[in-house]
């Protein structure tokens, strides 16, 4: 009996310890899995952050280019107008010294009066019609327009980056298209014609900085797909319960084997170092989080069409109707 008891006891112990061990193993695995999840979440937010930094870099490059041109003529004009005014002051000096000669003249004499009568309109004409004044006025008009150009850029930039706001708001997608096109302008202006078909569309409730990033990403991709010259057509329209924004390029297109993988993270066709393969996966993620969607179709060799859709905000629909003209 004793003998049987020992066997039974040791079997129980063995079973118990096996249970305990496997539970510990399970716990350990569980822990590892949650750590893995945590790590993935961190790396994903790092990826989002990196992408944000990349689009920030793009923005700085674009705006630097756009601002340096008006700065160029502003700076030059300010200096040239100063010089022209100095020259004009010299002219005033000449007129003044000509007038000063009359101090020694007896003005009661008719000849003196006659001479003065002839001279005064000439002096006035010389001073008011001085070509330096005419030129200064032109240069200052340009300068003012330059200031307006820079102000528009800064306003657009603020609208794009939303540095002063965060969170969801009611927003006109046409506004985002315009500012994304402005930011990408330095990649487009040499070689790509942009056609805008922006219709009057209802407002959407979104995080504008994120949707702007989506637009910039799609415009940049289109520009890169058109190696030489090309046309980018950007359209916006209402389609039932959604607002659709379409980006149609005349670039190299996307092979049908690639199309299904195009929104996968780390999938890229660009050479090493040129693309991270994260752009479109982030675009997809941002749109999904807005209950929106993105579709793509392409004819290889002819171009590609990306269609973004975002749900119309019904609350806004009752009270607002925004025209495209308000944007410009």
């Amino acid at each position: 009996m004793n003998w049987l008891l020992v066997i039974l006891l040791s079997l129980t112990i063995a079973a118990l310890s096996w249970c305990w061990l496997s539970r510990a193993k399970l716990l350990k695995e569980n822990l590892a899995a949650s750590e893995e999840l945590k790590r993935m979440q961190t790396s994903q937010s790092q990826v989002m952050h990196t992408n944000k930094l990349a689009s920030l870099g793009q923005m700085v490059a674009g705006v630097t280019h756009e601002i340096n041109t008006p700065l160029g003529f502003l700076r030059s004009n300010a200096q040239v107008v100063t010089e022209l005014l100095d020259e004009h002051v010299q002219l005033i000096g000449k007129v003044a010294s000509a007038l000063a000669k009359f101090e020694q003249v007896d003005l009661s004499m008719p000849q003196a009066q006659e001479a003065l009568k002839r001279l005064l309109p000439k002096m006035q004409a010389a001073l008011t019609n001085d070509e330096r004044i005419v030129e200064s006025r032109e240069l200052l008009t340009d300068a003012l327009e330059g200031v307006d150009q820079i102000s528009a850029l800064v306003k657009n930039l603020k609208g794009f980056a939303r540095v002063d706001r965060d969170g969801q708001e009611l927003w006109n997608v046409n506004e985002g298209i315009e500012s994304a096109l402005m930011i990408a302008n330095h990649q487009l202006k040499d070689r790509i014609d942009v056609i805008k078909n922006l219709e009057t569309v209802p407002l959407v409730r979104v995080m504008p900085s994120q949707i702007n990033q989506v637009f910039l990403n799609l415009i940049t991709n289109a520009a890169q797909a058109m190696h030489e010259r090309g046309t980018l057509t950007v359209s916006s329209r209402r389609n039932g319960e959604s607002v659709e924004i379409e980006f149609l390029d005349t670039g190299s297109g996307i092979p049908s084997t690639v199309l299904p993988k195009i929104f996968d993270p780390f999938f890229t066709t660009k050479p090493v170092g040129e693309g991270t393969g994260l752009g479109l996966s982030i675009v997809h993620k941002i749109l999904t989080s807005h209950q929106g969607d993105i579709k793509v179709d392409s004819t290889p060799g002819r171009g590609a069409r990306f269609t973004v859709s975002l749900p119309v905000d019904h609350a806004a629909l009752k009270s607002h109707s925004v025209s495209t003209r308000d944007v410009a």
Partner: protein
Amino acid sequence: MADKIRILCIDDEARILRALKALFREHEVHTTSDPKLALLWAKSKDIDVIVCDQRMPQMLGVELLREIKLVQPRAMRLLLTGYSDLNAVLASVNESEVFRFINKPWDNTELRHIVTQAASIARDVPTLSTAPISESEKEQARQTASVLVIEDDPDTQNRLREILGTHYTVRFANNAERAMQLLEQHETGVVISEAETTAGDWTTLIKLLKQYHPQIPTVVITDRANAQLAIDLINEGQVYRMLIKPVRMGTCRLSVESAIGHYWQLKKNPNVLRRYSVSPPKNSGGILPAWLSSGLLERIKKLPRRLLGSMA
């Protein structure tokens, strides 16, 4: 200058053109946004100085300047740009051989100074013949002048030895002292150097060498997308060619062959040297790095010139 300078300005922004016209109001200024018209005018109006924007809808500035170079070779070419991407800078060195690269917004006093200097060169200094030198002359140039590589990275040294060793006498220096010794002892037809290495910035040496010995073309190798460094090398170093790492055999050989040919032409026609003059370095402000201070500047100045014929 007694005569009015004939300046041609090309930009797609009309306000830039008006600003330049006002800035150079004492001279004869022609302005256009149309590259084709510019190409026509460069010759028909016998232009001295071209000021051209880089980014225009119809054509890139560097492309237009390359074509203008063929029709009006005596005109000096300046590139005026709002945003300098490295590709533009490289093309402006390797293809359109610009005299100066100027960033927007520019400084009026500086731009006036550059244009006046450029105009005096365009009028007084003859141009080199654009015809390539003969095979026998090429051979003679190779026999006479050697290639100096200033480089401390053994891998790049080996790569260059591999690419150039069979065609040229190539000598290597891994520091400034050794480079000076080789320049003093041997006639050098081209200097190849890396822009920045772990040992420091070689560009100061390149710029100083160019300032006193403009007849020696320099080929600079760079691996970094640093547009400003490249712009300084144009304006202050009149670098002859710029190569991007990894160094490719074809481009490297072509560049060195062209550079040696250029050296040979300059050696025989020292009267054209002023076309390759440089602006004094902006950044160092007269203070030389420690490794250059020990009498090296004096030695650079005293290097034998080995020119044939007389200077202008």
